[in-house]
């Protein structure tokens, strides 16, 4: 086993990023509640992105239904609060169990499908849960949603450190999984499921592992969302476009199957949606711009900003400078 110092050496960038993020609330000028709100959203989406990346990027099972897990996590906290009077923070641990069970159910139905059919199966699962949450009024309060009367903290800093801790934990979990032999099994399944099967990899088992871990991380993000925003309804947390598709976009923009892709993608997406939202008139067109961005990324940068970084640099530098300078 590598010693602590060696591990730290290997993950110098990661350590620097974590320390950098941890001190931001202490920096005067950066610690406004607006900046912290943005950072909290970025970290939350990077958790969802990392989760999606494990299942979609490494294991090759593209899910269109991560809203199902996000919503399950969010509603676990909300229901514990509303019906039992517990703190909504119990949604984190309890939600992990609930979402894991839900993911096994989804896996039982959807993992027998391959490629695009899996994608659409999960999409249907997300929609089923949304409609169910809308109609099961005795449990979920239907479209009225659940509102927390008081939030745990007024200040943003505690929420920020909680989501930072969740993000770091997710990053570590994914690193450990992807660098272990499981990671190689996942990639083997992505590249050719039949070949992986014939080499003795239990594809059903490993696809289920990827799905459950991915779902649980997404569910934790959902439970955090309930505590942080203080209000949930089915249209918000089970949203197809605003959760499931954004989860895909975060990873597609950042870079599929890359370590930093989800974080980079989340930063870009949140900044972009903020900028777009503040523009007069164009603000309402944010989905058009997102859609166009998605189309452009798929056609020109299919491996995202991180994955196609060299290609992107060549494009921007290669045109303006002579060929020799582009390589630096």
């Amino acid at each position: 086993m590598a010693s602590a110092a060696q591990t730290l050496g290997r993950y110098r960038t990661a350590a620097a990023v974590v320390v950098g993020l941890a001190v931001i609330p202490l920096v005067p000028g950066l610690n406004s509640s607006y900046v912290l709100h943005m950072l909290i959203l970025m970290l939350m989406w990077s958790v969802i992105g990392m989760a999606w990346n494990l299942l979609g990027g490494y294991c090759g099972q593209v899910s269109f239904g991560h809203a199902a897990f996000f919503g399950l996590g969010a509603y676990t906290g909300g229901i514990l609060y509303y019906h039992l009077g517990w703190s909504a923070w119990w949604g984190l641990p309890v939600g992990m169990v609930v979402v894991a069970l839900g993911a096994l159910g989804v896996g039982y139905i959807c993992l027998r499908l391959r490629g695009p059919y899996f994608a659409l199966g999960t999409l249907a699962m997300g929609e089923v849960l949304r409609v169910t949450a809308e109609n099961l009024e005795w449990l979920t309060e239907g479209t009225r949603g659940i509102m927390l009367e008081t939030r745990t903290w007024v200040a943003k800093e505690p929420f920020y450190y909680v989501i930072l801790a969740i993000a770091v934990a997710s990053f570590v979990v994914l690193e450990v999984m992807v660098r272990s032999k499981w990671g190689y099994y996942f990639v083997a399944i992505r590249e050719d499921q039949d070949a992986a099967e014939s080499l003795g990899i239990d594809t059903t088992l490993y696809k289920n592992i990827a799905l459950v871990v991915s779902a649980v991380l997404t569910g934790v993000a959902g439970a955090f969302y309930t505590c942080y925003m203080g209000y949930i309804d089915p249209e918000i947390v089970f949203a197809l476009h605003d959760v499931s598709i954004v989860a895909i976009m975060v990873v597609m923009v950042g870079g599929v199957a890359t370590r930093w892709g989800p974080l980079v993608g989340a930063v870009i997406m949140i900044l972009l949606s903020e900028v777009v939202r503040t523009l007069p008139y164009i603000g309402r067109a944010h989905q058009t711009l997102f859609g166009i961005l998605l189309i452009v990324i798929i056609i020109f940068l299919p491996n995202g900003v991180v994955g196609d970084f060299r290609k992107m640099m060549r494009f921007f530098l290669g045109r303006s400078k002579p060929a020799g300078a582009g390589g630096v």
Partner: protein
Amino acid sequence: MVQLEVFLQTLVSGLLLGGLYALIGLGMTLIMGVMKIINLAHGELMMVAMYIAFWLFHLLGMDPYVTLLVTVPALFVLGVFIQKTLISPVLKVDSILPENQVILTVGIGMVLQNLATLFFTSDYRSTPVDYASDAWYLSDWWRSSPIELSFSVPWVVSFGFAVAITAALWWFLQRTDAGKAIRATAQDKDAAILMGVNVERMTVVTFGLGAALVGAAGSLFIPMYYLYPALGGRFTLIAFVITILGGLGSTQGAIIGGLILGVFESMTATYVGMGWAPVGRFLVFVACLIFLPGGVAGLMRRR
């Protein structure tokens, strides 16, 4: 007796709805069969057609059924345009995830829906035709009928058009050279190329045809349905459920799948509650995936 009447009435409206669903499913299954991609902008294309029909009705006073003459060619052109400029470049790009094409159609759908919201607002629109609430009754033809059933005029007319269009498509696919070339491409792309079929062109034509079919469905739905931009997403899901139910890429399957789904939804709405109709739709879907993965087409093949 009343119970039987309710049941039969539900069955009739389910079948009428199912006929239109079949038209939507046919377009999707054609695209899926030939191009092996799932078009998740399918419902949004129908929404575009419905807006075309709505404005023709509103500005020129055209009857919704006459707008078929405009929506079908317009959607064909739109489909060809999308296929040529967006989908075919992506088919050539090399990437880790082959599902990129599906995600691409999601992007197209998002753009279409959002543009519709921008230009036409998210208000509910309708085409108030004067025959909207007319109906034919069973007792009109059969005096001594023990039970009474009503047949809404716009539903029956739309259903008739849907059947006619389906029959025309059938004839096109079975009898014409272009139709045979499309079926050959769906069966085996490489073999079709070797037989001298212009596969590239057939792909473009298929996407246009699929869009045109769902465009026709748009014109046929507009007399009965309220129109708003988010309508498209709902119909994309419906189209997709029908295709899974029918068996991927099978035209007969799509027709039967559409009818089954129509009847099932109408039954759920009557016997369980309006709000649960979408859940019923997905229960059919999940049950189909678990117990009948090949869909109706798989069942027919086994016989």
